[in-house]
């Protein structure tokens, strides 16, 4: 287990009295060269991402996802890289990176497991699932079991409502949905991940790893045509439509042709 240098949030002491503090390593002197991890391919993708927006700064969130896809977290070098390509200061980029929970400040595992512990999931067992996984992995929120980046390593977090409440309790692995979980199914899932297996999500594409999905979040899709076909049709999602089909319920029929558009309003 690797606890981050910051404040490891131990499990269930109910004692997190202070607002979350932001911890970055002190800024590295500007003159030291950027690590070569941001290679030519990354630089090309950077250009492609910036070109999508009317103003370059809008590319900052995607670019932070991009540097995270390279390093597995947003490092000080990643901050400097974004600052350099967008002509911002590192302070400006840090201020943004620390605001958003998906940018991780310490190296993450091969997989990120996010358990929804918002009220509805929690009432249906989400809290228990989180507690069990935490105990099983020996880590707390945003901590990693195993050597970060190595096969089978897992970063655990509790998440806010994942917009899947009809399938509660839910968790995500690398942001792919595993719906209707139990303590047992979640535990079996995590054990499979640790063994290097990649169980299929309920909704989403076949599992890859956190770095790969961070690239997709940056808007660079290595295999969009393949990934897009991943399942999405959960029975819960389709329930209303299914019931309507069974009972021959329909919306009132539309006219055969679209009706004429209204007249133009009178100019004042």
């Amino acid at each position: 287990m690797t606890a981050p240098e910051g404040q490891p949030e131990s499990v269930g002491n109910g004692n997190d009295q202070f607002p979350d503090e932001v911890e970055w390593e002190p800024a590295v002197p500007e003159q030291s060269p950027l690590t070569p991890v941001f290679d030519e391919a990354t630089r090309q993708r950077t250009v492609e991402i910036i070109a999508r927006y009317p103003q370059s700064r809008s590319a900052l969130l995607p670019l932070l996802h991009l540097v995270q896809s390279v390093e597995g977290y947003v490092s000080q070098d990643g901050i400097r890289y974004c600052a350099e390509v967008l002509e911002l200061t590192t302070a400006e980029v840090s201020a943004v990176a620390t605001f958003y929970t998906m940018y991780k400040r310490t190296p993450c595992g091969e997989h990120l497991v996010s358990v929804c512990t918002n009220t509805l999931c929690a009432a249906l067992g989400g809290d228990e699932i989180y507690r069990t996984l935490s105990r099983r992995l020996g880590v707390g929120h945003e901590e990693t079991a195993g050597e970060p980046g190595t096969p089978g390593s897992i970063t655990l977090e509790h998440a806010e409502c994942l917009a899947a409440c009809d399938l509660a309790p839910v968790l995500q692995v690398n942001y792919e949905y595993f719906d209707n979980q139990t303590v047992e199914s979640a535990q079996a899932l995590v054990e499979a991940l640790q063994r290097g297996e990649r169980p299929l999500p309920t909704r989403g594409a076949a599992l890859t790893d956190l770095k790969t999905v961070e690239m997709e979040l940056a808007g660079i899709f290595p295999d969009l045509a393949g990934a897009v076909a991943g399942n999405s049709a959960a029975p819960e999602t389709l329930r209303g439509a299914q019931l309507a089909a069974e009972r021959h319920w329909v919306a009132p029929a539309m006219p055969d042709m679209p009706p004429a558009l209204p007249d133009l309003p009178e100019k004042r």
Partner: protein
Amino acid sequence: MTNSDRSGLDTSTPDPITPVLTRRWLSPRAWDIDVYEQLEGYAALRYALTGHPDQLIELVKASGLRGRGGAGFPTGMKWGFIPQGPTGAGAKPKYLVVNADEGEPGTCKDIPTMMADPHSLIEGCIITCYAIRANFCAIYIRGEALHPLRRVRYAVEQAYAKGYLGRDILGSGFDLDIVVHAGAGAYICGEETALLDSLEGRRGQPRLKPPFPATSGLYASPTVVNNVETIASVPAIVQGGSSWFRTMGQEKSPGPKIYSLSGHVTRPGQYEAPMGTTLRALLELAGGMKDGIPLKFWTPGGSSTPLFTAEHLDVPLDFEGAATAGSMLGTTALQIFNETVSVPWAVMKWTEFYKHESCGKCTPCREGTYWLLQILERMLHKQGTPADIETLLDVCDNVLGRAFCALGDGATSPITSGIKYFRQEFLDLCTAQPSGGVDTAAHDQLPELTGASA
């Protein structure tokens, strides 16, 4: 019996479920453009492009469509606020930003929409942009919604390939680019001005209004921000017309709406019904309460809308009905809790959420949510006093209406409504005073209060 008016529209009471937004969801691969086109997709766009942009704004005004993102603002009116013309603000570029940040606890309708039928959103975006004369549109999808992001991005690529996007769309002379943008995990970015700041590459913190986005939105230019479900409703309105749209729902809240049922019901899921349906009707569709355990409390539209109880089964779930009964329609996210769940516990959990998601910009919300959580946790750990209940209400009173944005207001909803309907439960926590020492084990006892069974 079927009644019809002069235009031949069926005006009898609509069926309990009226699939419009969800009408393609059962078709395999409806997210693929070929299937979408077979199912009448992009027909509305072709028709819309034959009209004048202002006619489309009039159409949407006449339909009575109201925003599906929570506040229910009339959509056509919002579009009409965009300054047009060759001079002044009208001369600036205009933008459409689609709010797909879906993060309000309980809300789970936009993500299935984007996965099942992303082209209805894209078609709606193109029609909307044509109406407001925007040549650039951004769809801001919450980062955790990775698979919807793929589906929407793929739909955009397919739409470009078929000439529905890009230069001179279908020979109309209208140009449009759409970018699909992933957020990075912050509920506050669903607030429209915070979303704009986030889209500009900044911390997602709300802006002072006025100026409103209609005049000073993205890059300080005129901008419409609309929810996914709002925009996805537009193609059907073009195809069916405003009178058809109004055959469903209520006078002031017309149309169909996706109601999301979650929690202790037999068959949770997405049910698209005419506006103004009731929880009683929806529960019937969903097979009733799970295992027959009675209903205790529910949210009509996400955690920011004040709680309802079993007394409210027949409240019409439209904007007016929910407000008259003391809550809000919000996002029609019906989170349903049975008798095993402790209200103070649920309220404490939601408060944890608001404290975590408070952006910190204004003092009432930043400090208020922090202290509200402290007090609630103390009560849950059986170290509270009856005076704490008054303190909670007092703090809420100081947050509500004084916070910079609606997140702060929303944070007070579960607390004040929870105390309003279930004060005794809060009092019971206080009378059961234990030793008074620091109760570090209390966390492990909480499951008893929730009735959690995993």
